[in-house]
C-alpha cells in the first residue's frame, strides 16, 4: 500500500477478506481433525451440507499409511534430484492430506486431471509411483495412457488441465453417464496461482453453464512460486465459485478426513448430475516450489513454523494413538514399508534406461510420416558417425 494512503477506511476494507490472518482461525473452513488430533464428529458447512466420515479402524490406519508413504517417496525423489539423478522435482511436502484425502475419495470410474505435483493422488489411484519419474529424469516425455489409469498426464502449463477436464466432464454428460449412484465424475487439480489464469476461469464458465460433473480441486498452498495469496486474490478463493454459479467450499487441506468428506460429497453431487463445485483445500507448501526454487527468499521462517504445527501426518498419528487405533509396532511397520518402497523406487530410477535419441521420433504421429521417417534416417546416420555406443 502506498505511503500516502490515509489508512483507516481503505486499509480496513482491504483487510476484511483476509481470513487467513484472522486470529480465531478460519471460520469457513471445514475441519474434522484438529492439528492436535481431536476428532470433530461432523460439521455443517456454510453450504448447508453436513460433513462427516465413518471410517473403520483399518481405514484410518490405511490413510495414515498413505500419508507416510507419499511423504517418504516424495522425499526420496527430492534426494534423487539433489544427487543429480532427477533434473527437477516438485515436492508435495505439506500437501499430503489434501492429496490423499481427495485421491481416496475418488471412485474407480472417476477421472482425475493433475498438475505436476499430484504424486499423492497418483499413489492413491494405485499407480506405480515410478510412472512420472521418467519425465523428471528426462528419459521420457511424461506420457502415459490417461484412460488406462483414469489419471491424465501431468500438465506443466498452469491451469490448462482445467479446460481439458471440463471438456471431459461435458463428454460424460453427453454420454449419459451421470445421474445415478454409479455415475462418473471428474476432478481437476490446480493451485492458488492457477486461479488467476484465464484457462481456469473459462473452465469455471463452461462447467457452470453446462452443468458439467466436475470438481475443481484447488490446493491453496499460499504461494504461486514466490507470489503470496494476498497478491492473487481479494476474496477467499472458494467464494469465487458463487460468481460462476456453482457452490464453493473451503476445507482444511491438512486434514485428510475433512478433505475426504468434502471431496466425496462434491464428487457425488457431480455424478448425480448436480453440476460442478469448487473445493479450496487450504494448505501450505512446506518445501520449495521446485528443487530450482529457494523459498527463504520470499517467506519468513515463523510462517513455516506456524504451519509445521498443523502438519497433516502428525495430527493423524496423534488421533490414532489417542484412540488406540494403532500402536508403536504399527507405526514402525509403516516406517519400514516406506523405507523399503523408497529404496525400491531409488533403485528403479537409477536403472531407468536412457532413451535412444531416435526414439524422439516415435510418438509424434501414431502412424509416422514420410518427412519424419526421412529425418529419423538422417539423424540415425548422424548418430552412427560417432564412435562407441550412445551411452
Amino acid at each position, binding site marked *: 500500500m502506498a505511503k500516502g494512503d490515509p489508512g483507516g477506511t481503505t486499509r480496513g476494507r482491504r483487510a476484511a477478506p483476509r481470513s487467513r490472518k484472522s486470529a480465531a482461525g478460519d471460520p469457513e473452513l471445514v475441519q474434522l481433525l484438529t492439528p492436535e488430533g481431536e476428532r470433530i464428529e461432523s460439521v455443517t458447512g456454510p453450504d448447508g451440507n453436513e460433513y462427516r466420515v465413518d471410517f473403520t479402524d483399518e481405514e484410518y490406519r490405511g490413510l495414515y499409511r498413505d500419508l507416510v508413504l507419499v511423504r517418504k517417496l516424495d522425499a526420496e525423489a527430492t534426494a534423487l534430484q*539433489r544427487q*543429480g539423478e532427477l533434473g527437477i522435482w516438485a515436492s508435495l511436502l505439506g500437501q499430503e492430506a489434501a492429496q490423499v484425502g481427495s485421491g481416496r475419495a475418488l471412485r474407480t470410474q472417476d477421472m482425475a486431471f493433475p498438475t505436476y505435483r499430484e504424486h499423492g493422488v497418483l499413489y492413491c489411484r494405485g499407480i506405480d509411483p515410478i510412472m512420472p519419474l521418467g519425465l523428471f529424469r528426462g528419459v521420457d516425455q511424461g506420457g502415459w495412457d490417461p484412460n488406462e489409469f483414469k489419471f491424465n498426464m501431468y500438465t506443466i502449463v498452469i491451469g490448462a488441465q482445467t479446460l481439458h477436464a471440463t471438456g471431459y466432464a461435458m463428454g460424460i454428460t453427453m454420454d449419459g453417464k451421470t445421474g445415478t449412484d454409479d455415475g462418473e465424475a471428474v476432478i481437476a487439480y490446480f493451485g492458488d496461482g492457477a486461479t488467476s489464469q484465464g484457462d481456469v476461469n473459462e473452465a469455471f464458465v463452461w462447467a457452470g453453464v453446462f452443468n458439467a460433473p466436475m470438481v475443481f480441486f484447488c490446493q491453496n498452498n499460499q504461494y504461486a512460486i514466490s507470489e503470496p495469496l494476498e497478491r492473487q486474490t481479494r476474496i477467499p478463493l472458494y467464494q469465487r465459485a458463487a460468481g460462476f454459479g456453482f457452490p464453493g467450499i473451503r476445507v482444511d487441506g491438512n486434514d485428510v478426513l475433512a478433505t475426504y468428506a468434502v471431496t466425496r460429497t462434491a464428487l457425488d453431487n457431480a455424478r448425480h448430475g448436480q453440476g460442478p463445485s469448487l473445493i479450496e483445500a487450504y494448505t501450505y507448501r512446506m518445501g520449495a516450489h521446485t528443487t*530450482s526454487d529457494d523459498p527463504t527468499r520470499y517467506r519468513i521462517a515463523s510462517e513455516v513454523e506456524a504451519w509445521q504445527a498443523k502438519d497433516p501426518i502428525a495430527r493423524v498419528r496423534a488421533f490414532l494413538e489417542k484412540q488406540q487405533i494403532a500402536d508403536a509396532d504399527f507405526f514402525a511397520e509403516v516406517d519400514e514399508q516406506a523405507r523399503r518402497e523408497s529404496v525400491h523406487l531409488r533403485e528403479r530410477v537409477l536403472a531407468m534406461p536412457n532413451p535412444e535419441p531416435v526414439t524422439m521420433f516415435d510418438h509424434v504421429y501414431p502412424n509416422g510420416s514420410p518427412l519424419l521417417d526421412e529425418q529419423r534416417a538422417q539423424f540415425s546416420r548422424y548418430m552412427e558417425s*560417432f*564412435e562407441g555406443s550412445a551411452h
Partner: protein
Amino acid sequence: MSRIKEFNLPDLGEGLTEGEILSWLVKVGDTIELNQPIVEVETAKAAVEIPAKWAGQVQAIFHPEGTTVEVGTPIIAIDTDPGAGPLDAPSTTATPGGDLPTPSAASLAAVEVAPAEGMVEPGLIGGPAPGGRTAVLVGYGPRTTAAKRRPRKGGVPAQAATTPTPMPAATAPAPQPVAAPASAHDGQGAATTGGPVLAKPPVRKLAKDLGVDLRTLTGSGPLGSITREDVQQAATGAVVAAEPIRATSVATSAASFGADREQRIPVKGVRKLTAENMSRSAFTAPHVTEFLTVDVTRAMKALDRLRGRREWRDVRVSPLLLVAKAVLLAVKRHPMVNSTWAGDEIVVKEYVNLGIAAATERGLIVPNVKDAGRLSLRELADALNDLVQTAKSGRTSPADMSGGTLTITNVGVFGVDTGTPILPPGESAILAFGAVREMPWVHKGKVKARQVTTLGLSFDHRIIDGELGSKFLRDIGDFLADPEAALLAWT
C-alpha cells in the same frame, strides 16, 4: 565396481554450472547413511543440502568450504564398503590441516569425456556465459556448459570436439558432415569476450556460413548486438585484420594430407559465397562469350604519354584504366548491356557501377566503382587505384561490393590471354581483359611486332543478342585500338 565412489557436484537447478561449498556436514572418517545430508551448497538459485548418494565412510573431501566448484567435479569420496578391510590402493585420505587430496586421475578423465552417471548429456542451449552465475530464481537458466560429445568415427582425436580454439582448416582432420562446425563459433571457449554474444539467429546463421567468429566482433546494433552488416564486414576483412584467414589461405599453403592422401577443406567464407554466386549465375543466366583480339599498341603509347604529363605524375596508370574507359564509353553507346534480368522485366541502368574482379588473400572479391560513367579519366584512375589498394589490404566493405552493374576481370595480370568469365549475379556483361603481349601482327600491310591483347566478353543472352554483344565488344576494341580517335568520335 570400485568400493570408493566419488560424488560429482550435480546441476542442482536446471542449467547451473557451479556451486559454492558453504559447509561440510560430515568429515573424513565419518560413517554416513544413504540420504544423510553431507554438504550445504549455494548455487545461483538456492542454498541446498545435498544428501549422500551412498552409505559408507567418508574417504576424502576434495574442496574446502568457501570454494566454488564446477558442476560435474568430484567433491567427496565415499568408501561404500568400509567393513571389507584396508584398501588396495594408497588412500587419498586428507591429513588434518594438510593439503586437500585430489580426485583420482581416472575419475577426472571420466568427467572429461562422459557426463556424470545418470546425468542427461548436457546440450548447448543459450549463449556462453563465463562465470556461470546467471541469476535465475526459477525456470530454465541458460545452459553454459559445453556439450561433451563422443568422438567421431574415423580417427578424429577425442580432443577435437572440445577444443575451444578454432582449428586452422589446414589441420582439420576429417569431414564434419552435420552441425559440428557450429560448436567452434557459438559455444565453447567463451572467455575471449567476457560476455554472451548478442546476435539474432539469422545473423548467427550468416556468421556460421561465412565462417565468422561472432566472439571476435564488436556489435554495432542495439545493446551492442552484432548485426548482419557487422558480420558481412568481418567476412570481407573490413574490420578484422588480425584474424588469420582460414579456409582460403589453405589453397596456397602447404597442404597436409591424411593417410588417404586427400585433404578436405571446409567450404565457407568467401569460397562459399563465390561458389554460390557462380553456380547460381552459371545455371540461371544463359552465357555467351565472344572474343576479340586487338592491337593496343597505340593505347599503350597513349598511356605512356599520359604518364608523362605533369598532372598525372603521381598517378599509377595501368592498361586497366583504358579498358575501363573503353567499357564506360561503349556502355553509353549501348545502354542495354548495363542491365539486369528481373524475371518479367529488364532493368536498364543509367549509372554504371563498374566492378573490378580482384584476387586477394581472402579470395576473389568484386568491388565496384560507383557511378563510374560520370567520372573524368583522372577521377576514374584514382578510384581504380583506391579500389585495388583497398582490396589488397583486405579492407573492402560490403557496400563497395554491392550494387555492381558491369564487371571487368583482369586475368591478364596472371599472364593468360583470356577466359570465358561467369557473370556476377544480377549483371549482364563481364569483360575479361587478357595479357598484353608483343605479337606478330599485320600492321599497315606488314607483319610487325605489336602490343596485342585478347578481350573476352560474356553476356546474358536473355537480354543481349549476338548483335548487341558483338557491337559492344567491337566498340571496346575500337577504343583500345585507337583511343584518341574514339574519344574524338564518340564524345
